[in-house]
């Protein structure tokens, strides 16, 4: 089956530092999403990015489809960025089922 590997498993930053989160996947992904999970549980969609580069605020997602990898860059981290970041893929446009990585736990200290 599909596998999604995320690294690092956890990351500790001082406020203001940048972070680079990685996602590697074992099969072609026609859908790739990055999610942020609040400590309380809600999963928030950050990017729908099966290929190319997208920006929103301090976040940048870059997916290189033929290399089966994606990254999430967080610039000038803030304490409110603390939480868990998940990468999830699905192989086909007509299947909704996502396969999730195990996440990267980010802690940003003031």
């Amino acid at each position: 089956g599909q596998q999604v590997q995320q690294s690092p498993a956890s990351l500790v930053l001082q406020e203001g530092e940048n972070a680079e989160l990685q996602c590697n996947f074992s099969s072609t992904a026609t859908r790739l999403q990055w999610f942020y999970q609040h400590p309380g549980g809600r999963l928030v969609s950050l990017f729908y990015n099966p290929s190319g580069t997208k920006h929103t605020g301090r976040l940048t997602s870059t997916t290189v489809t033929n290399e089966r990898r994606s990254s999430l860059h967080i610039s000038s981290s803030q304490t409110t960025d603390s939480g868990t970041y998940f990468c999830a893929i699905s192989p086909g446009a007509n299947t909704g089922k996502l396969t999730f990585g195990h996440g990267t736990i980010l802690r940003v200290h003031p």
Partner: protein
Amino acid sequence: NSKVIQTPRYLVKGQGQKAKMRCIPEKGHPVVFWYQQNKNNEFKFLINFQNQEVLQQIDMTEKRFSAECPSNSPCSLEIQSSEAGDSALYLCASSQGSGNTLYFGEGSRLIVV
């Protein structure tokens, strides 16, 4: 911001009891998903619907899980006889179509004691 509404936020059940969770998808989203997230951050896809029809589901061989999305009513996921291993966060998501962004609710956290 996601407008998927899940209730209840928390439920505590004894082993063998029924546990029922509900989900109201975003307006205009015909596709609904249920996932189970365990304490190790492992996500398990359970089932998805398009309107009221099941699109895909895992082999719920234990027959303890059932789900439905009736028209004009919230979707629901029910565990007939809860077991300790069912303790998890149950997440509902909706989308405009199978190839579109998924939007998740806050989840229902089930604790089976």
